[in-house]
């Protein structure tokens, strides 16, 4: 556990090597293997740290590597406080779980990327792995950091890496635009996060998570009766940060565009890890949030609305990656719904299962896109299961998991969230409303996921024809991917299975997506499965203040009710799957007829509720307009003033020059002229005759003597 500071550092070193040396000198394989090795090492360390953590009583370990900011006196609400920040890392159940997710999924995705990225030019591969390692460095810093500022370093760093990786194909206009959009939208959220951090220090005089939680636990809970106090303000600001990073309403618009990046990036950053940073941050500050029930209500409402809105948009998307992107937004909404109803353990649980099946689905879609020669439109796929059976099977497992069919992982985590939402008593929102929306979303989720599976892997092949003669279609031995990598301009021989570099991570993730749910089996199954709610018990110490020793609340209702709820969600999921099967496999024309009969709603959904257009018309246009206005002001007023000053100076200098020339010089010349003219008169006195001078002298002597004699 002492070496947890190495966990983030290892990928950091990998990024440095690949970035400084690799881009110039490394081969494609070497760069990928180096980066994967660093991730594997970090995974190894995380695993042993996790095991050691299980062995300790306290389940909390903090390592301070160095002092970052020495104590500075700063104002706080209780007078002058000492602002000091250490580079310190915390291992507790929550961060240990997150570190395992990031290193584990990250390691698999690194392996997968070796196969995925091999068509890129050599330097580009090293650059890709440099960014990917750098991302893991920042993400692990975010996860393990034990105070707000270290977390913020990671928080900003992952945003940077997200920008770099979305814009990896920077020569593509849409990719670089998407990168900028992600960065700028995230910045809006970061603004809230930073303000929240300022307010945390001002209120508590420290930025350490544990100290803040302890201090907050001493303060009264800000219920509706108490009013909207400082903790509510902190939580609201932090949540603004979370909406940016975790793509919630109103800042979710960047995530679908982020699909412009390479698919492993979408899997790692925009599905499994970075976008969950907001959920993680809210869970990390669970004590603060439980003291602000009104903000919790806002979080829950935003979460469920995001889940619903994103799911409805996902219904009609035709780009395979965009469906998954909206699905991610929707599932993140679920996680926020869970945190909003106080089920932090369920949120973290869903975060973990979601990391498995969403990474799996993204990597599977990457394999499909790869096999289809960079085709992303599902309307041009179909029937691919015979060409890429491993991908089809693993993606189907992922889809069943996210749809919530027992006993796959998504069922347990999603059901836990819905169950806790069902029991939740809101502050403003009537009971059961959030739950009802959640159930509707669950059905939509099952539908759009199976729409994706059906359109991609079932039915008739609708894609472009390929040149016959060279190879049989469906030639899918694993060696194919390798020799395919020999040249970019290689002729396409039809859809084919991806190389082993890519399929092995798929299989591992599929196993994870299948079984990960068993760590959180509902308590209702106590009779048949003795290890219920393991993950909630494990994570619980992270969500309460250290001194408080709060008792874990039991959330119980009658067994019949609990099983009834479970049965309902399974039925709902099966309904969605059935509807997708009926419309996209049984009668493929039914979907089009449905779209025609509901042309209005369909158009609205296809255009994503016109949110991008709305933002474009208001925020973007407003910003551009005000920028243009300011530019005009700059041009006309500021530059005008500067130029006016210049012209005034020139004019003044001209006047001054005239004055100098005619008045000053004139006076000088006049003096000289007067002297010259006067000299014509006075030089008459200079006769040169010595006797004249002597006579004048004598007259002077007489004058003085006379004056002397008479006046005295």
């Amino acid at each position: 556990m002492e070496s947890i500071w190495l966990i983030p550092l290892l990928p950091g070193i990998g990024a440095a090597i690949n970035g400084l040396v690799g881009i110039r000198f490394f081969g494609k394989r070497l760069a990928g293997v180096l980066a994967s090795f660093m991730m594997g090492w970090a995974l190894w360390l995380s695993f042993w740290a996790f095991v050691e953590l299980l062995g300790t009583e306290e389940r909390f370990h903090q390592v301070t590597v160095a002092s970052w900011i020495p104590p500075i006196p700063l104002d706080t609400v209780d007078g002058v406080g000492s602002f000091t920040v250490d580079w310190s890392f915390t291992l507790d159940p929550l961060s240990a779980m997150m570190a395992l997710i990031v290193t584990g999924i990250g390691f698999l995705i690194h392996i997968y990327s070796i196969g995925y990225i091999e068509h890129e030019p050599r330097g580009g591969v090293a650059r890709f792995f440099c960014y990917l390692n750098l991302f893991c460095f920042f993400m692990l810093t975010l996860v393990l950091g034990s105070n707000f500022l270290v977390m913020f370093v990671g928080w900003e760093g992952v945003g940077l890496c997200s920008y770099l990786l979305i814009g990896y194909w920077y020569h593509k206009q849409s990719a670089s635009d998407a990168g900028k959009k992600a960065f700028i939208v995230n910045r809006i959220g970061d603004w809230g996060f930073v303000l929240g951090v300022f307010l945390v220090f001002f209120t508590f005089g420290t930025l350490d998570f544990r100290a803040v939680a302890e201090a907050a636990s001493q303060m009264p809970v800000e219920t509706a009766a108490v009013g909207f106090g400082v903790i509510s303000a902190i939580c609201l600001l932090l949540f603004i940060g979370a909406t940016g990073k975790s793509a919630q309403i109103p800042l979710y618009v960047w995530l679908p565009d982020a699909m412009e990046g390479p698919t492993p990036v979408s899997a790692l950053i925009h599905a499994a890890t970075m976008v969950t940073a907001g959920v993680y941050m809210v869970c990390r500050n669970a004590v603060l949030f439980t003291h602000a029930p009104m903000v919790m209500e806002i979080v829950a409402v935003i979460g469920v609305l995001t889940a619903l809105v994103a799911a409805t948009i996902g219904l009609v998307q035709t780009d395979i990656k965009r469906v998954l992107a909206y699905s991610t937004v929707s599932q993140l909404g679920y996680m926020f719904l869970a945190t909003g109803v106080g089920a932090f353990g369920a949120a973290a649980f869903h975060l973990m299962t979601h990391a498995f099946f969403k990474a799996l689905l993204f990597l599977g879609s990457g394999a499909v896109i790869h096999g289809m020669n960079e085709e992303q439109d599902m309307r041009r796929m179909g029937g691919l299961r015979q060409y890429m059976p491993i991908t089809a099977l693993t993606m189907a497992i992922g889809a069943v998991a996210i749809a919530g069919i027992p006993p796959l992982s998504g069922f347990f985590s999603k059901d836990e969230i819905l169950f806790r939402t069902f029991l939740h008593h809101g502050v403003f929102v009537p009971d059961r409303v959030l739950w009802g929306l959640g159930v509707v979303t669950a059905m939509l989720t099952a539908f759009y996921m199976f729409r994706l599976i059906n359109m991609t892997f079932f039915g008739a092949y609708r894609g472009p024809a390929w040149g016959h003669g060279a190879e049989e279609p469906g030639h899918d031995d694993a060696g194919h991917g390798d020799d395919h990598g020999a040249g970019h301009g290689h002729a396409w021989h039809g859809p084919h299975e991806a190389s082993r570099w890519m399929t092995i991570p798929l299989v591992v993730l599929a196993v994870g997506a299948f079984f990960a749910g068993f760590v959180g089996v509902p308590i209702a199954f106590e009779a048949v499965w003795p290890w219920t709610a393991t993950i909630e018990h494990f994570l619980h110490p992270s969500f309460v203040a250290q001194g408080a020793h709060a008792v874990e609340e039991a959330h119980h209702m009658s067994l019949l009710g609990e099983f009834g709820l479970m049965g309902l969600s399974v039925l709902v999921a099966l309904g969605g799957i059935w509807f997708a099967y009926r419309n996209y496999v049984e009668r493929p024309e039914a979907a089009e007829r449905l779209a025609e009969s509901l042309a209005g709603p369909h158009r609205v959904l296809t255009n994503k509720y016109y949110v991008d257009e709305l933002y474009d018309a208001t925020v973007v246009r407003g910003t551009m307009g005000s920028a243009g206005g300011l530019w005009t002001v700059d041009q006309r007023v500021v530059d005008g003033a500067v130029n006016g000053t210049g012209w005034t100076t020139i004019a003044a200098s001209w006047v001054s020059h005239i004055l100098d020339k005619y008045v000053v010089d004139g006076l000088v010349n006049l003096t000289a002229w007067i002297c010259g003219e006067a000299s014509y008169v006075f030089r008459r006195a200079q006769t040169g005759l010595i006797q004249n001078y002597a006579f004048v002298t004598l007259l002077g002597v007489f004058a003085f003597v006379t004056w002397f004699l008479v006046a005295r």
Partner: protein
Amino acid sequence: MLEITPLHYSLLSAALFMIGVIGVLVRRNVIIIFMSIELILNAVNINLIALSDQLQDLAGQVFVVFVIAVAAAEAAVGLGIIIAFYRNKETVNIDEIQIMRW
């Protein structure tokens, strides 16, 4: 017999001085002007000696000896200048000597 009083000396000295001054101012011959200057100096000498006698102070007479010595030196330099001038201009008329005029 009329006693010679300091007033007499003063009158003599004044008369001699005025003759010298008028000589300097009106004569044109440089030699004559030169001689008139000597008259002025000697008028001063008479005055000094008379007052020395009256005040019983030998300093006046010592002063006179100095004046005579300086006058001799002056005469030597002055006559030298006049001879040099005469060699150039073939005249000693003071009206011709105005080369330092504008």
